[in-house]
């Protein structure tokens, strides 16, 4: 698939400059929410609004996963009634939402972040503590190898070394 290919190409052709960590926002308790504060390192790389939208969508996914309500109670009671043996064969609601989140992150990476030389890491891989955003410096010379699909077409990715 060309889009995944370009992500891997990005990893190989660009060099990692730095990583930004978006921390958790605990003001609402222990529920999983991330701070929507725009990191200054991304100032020149991506529009503030796009970033905020990503984080807000992720926050809403996590809120959905951790929601306490009718269906979660049903799942909990059913699990309890079977002495939790049902977890051996059933996927929990949380796990289902996590799959959605991972798809969303991949999609965001392909469409928005990779073309700008950025890469989002799923918070699940970082213990749900941070959203790690890797910032890549584009090596202009190897631009030819990466397929023209995303990195060369949008001006943002290619302009990494020049003018920014």
């Amino acid at each position, binding site marked *: 698939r060309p889009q995944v290919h370009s992500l891997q190409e990005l990893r190989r052709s660009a060099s990692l400059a730095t990583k930004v960590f978006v921390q958790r926002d605990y003001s*609402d308790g222990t529920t999983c929410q991330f701070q929507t504060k725009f990191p200054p390192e991304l100032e020149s790389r991506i529009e503030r609004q796009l970033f905020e939208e990503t984080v807000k969508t992720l926050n809403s996914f996590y809120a959905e996963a951790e929601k306490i309500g009718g269906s979660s109670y049903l799942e909990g009671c059913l699990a309890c009634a079977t002495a939790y043996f049902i977890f051996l064969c059933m996927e929990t609601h949380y796990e289902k939402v996590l799959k959605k989140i991972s798809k969303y992150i991949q999609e965001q990476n392909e469409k928005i972040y990779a073309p700008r030389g950025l890469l989002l890491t799923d918070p699940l891989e970082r213990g749900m*503590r941070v959203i790690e955003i890797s910032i890549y410096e584009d090596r202009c010379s190897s631009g030819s190898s990466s397929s023209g699909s995303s990195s060369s077409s949008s001006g943002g990715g290619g302009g990494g070394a020049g003018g920014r």
Partner: protein
Amino acid sequence: MTPGGGSGPMKDCEYSQISTHSSSSPMESPHKKKKTAPKRKWEVFPGRNKFFCNGRIMMARQTGVFYLTLVLILVTSGLFFAFDCPYLSEKITPAIPAIGGILFFFVMGTLLRTSFSDPGVLPRATPDEAADLERQIDIANGSSSGGYRPPPRTKEVIINGQTVKLKYCFTCKIFRPPRASHCSLCDNCVERFDHHCPWVGNCVGKRNYRFFYMFILSLSFLTVFIFAFVITHVILRSQQTGFLNALKDSPASVLEAVVCFFSVWSIVGLSGFHTYLISSNQTTNEDIKGSWSNKRGKENYNPYSYGNIFTNCCAALCGPLSPSLIDRRGFIQPDTPQLAGPSNGITMYGATQSQSNMAAATPLLQSEPSITSEELPLPGKTSLSGPCATLTLGQPTPPSSMPNLTSDTGLTDMIPLKEEHEGHQFLTPEEAPSPPGMLPSGSPITHSHTMHVLSLASQDSLHEDSVRGLVKLSSV
């Protein structure tokens, strides 16, 4: 190496053939080894845990008391079903063994779930994350930090109107989320840490609290059930044959009655205590410290409570179950820089040695000042035969009646309190390299390999801190 041609004599030919094989295989085998036998994450897990069934089962290091629990439950229930149930099902109703069976099944299911699952361990910070945090702390405290006073590592958050202090964990290199705590026995930060229970051989935290509660609740019912029906059995028999004869006919009942009698007080008491905790949405940890009690101040209240008992109970028992964050059965990604090639490991060896000592020394000092004379606690999964780190704190000899459980957690919890009160005096030794004579024995390369994962990028900042710490120590 060129493949051996037929040019030399037979001997040479063979030699060159052999050498071709051996020359190509060192090139291939590390590569092959990485591809054919990739390691799962549990094999390099830095905490003090034991893993079974290829990472599916996770327990604390000390499991002796867990086996005792299993034996007690199995033997008592077994005797009940074998000796008392036939009589009772005949005389009264076969529903008795049926209900007993269901209770037993429930008890075993919840016990195994509690003991074998991940309590909510927080994975340690990746080197990049740790370095980033260090940088932020330095910025926040002013990088000059005059007088070599290490910065107090706390962050304050306002949750539902209450100010909560988030503490920095030196072992895991993270700011602990609210309600998380570091278990000194397992050397892990655990989310919503309740306590470390030696009877189930695991920590009790966010992910297995409901299993634990259902376990003690169902065990209370089972104990009372068995006790009641054993008594009934003996009474019914003695109506026929006299008391002493009844006891002689069914000696197992005596044993069961004794076990049940002594267990019932502690288990039912514990169930009651945890019911109270659940309904007020507190952890054992918080209750002992009195974090949310009114005695601390009129304005003190529990910010996590939902306000009413019903919602609190539902949230704790039927809320969503979060996934395990440590991904113990996942494979270690080959493209992460930490595990790339042996050269990295060797060049870092000198540096990581000191960091490994540092990092390993911190849990020691964190756990209890009185046990600093103990041996160095080493990472769980590396098969080092050296010091086996049996901390006296971890010895589960006291019975699990509430005071003792609380004393365990009390001690575990003294740590953050001490960090606060003794301030820099306590923090400095943690940042210094380990005291002399505590170098780990056993394979240093595996050791550094493990520690390598933790301390790659933060090497510089740790070095700085260690230098600062050394100077401080020498001045003291």
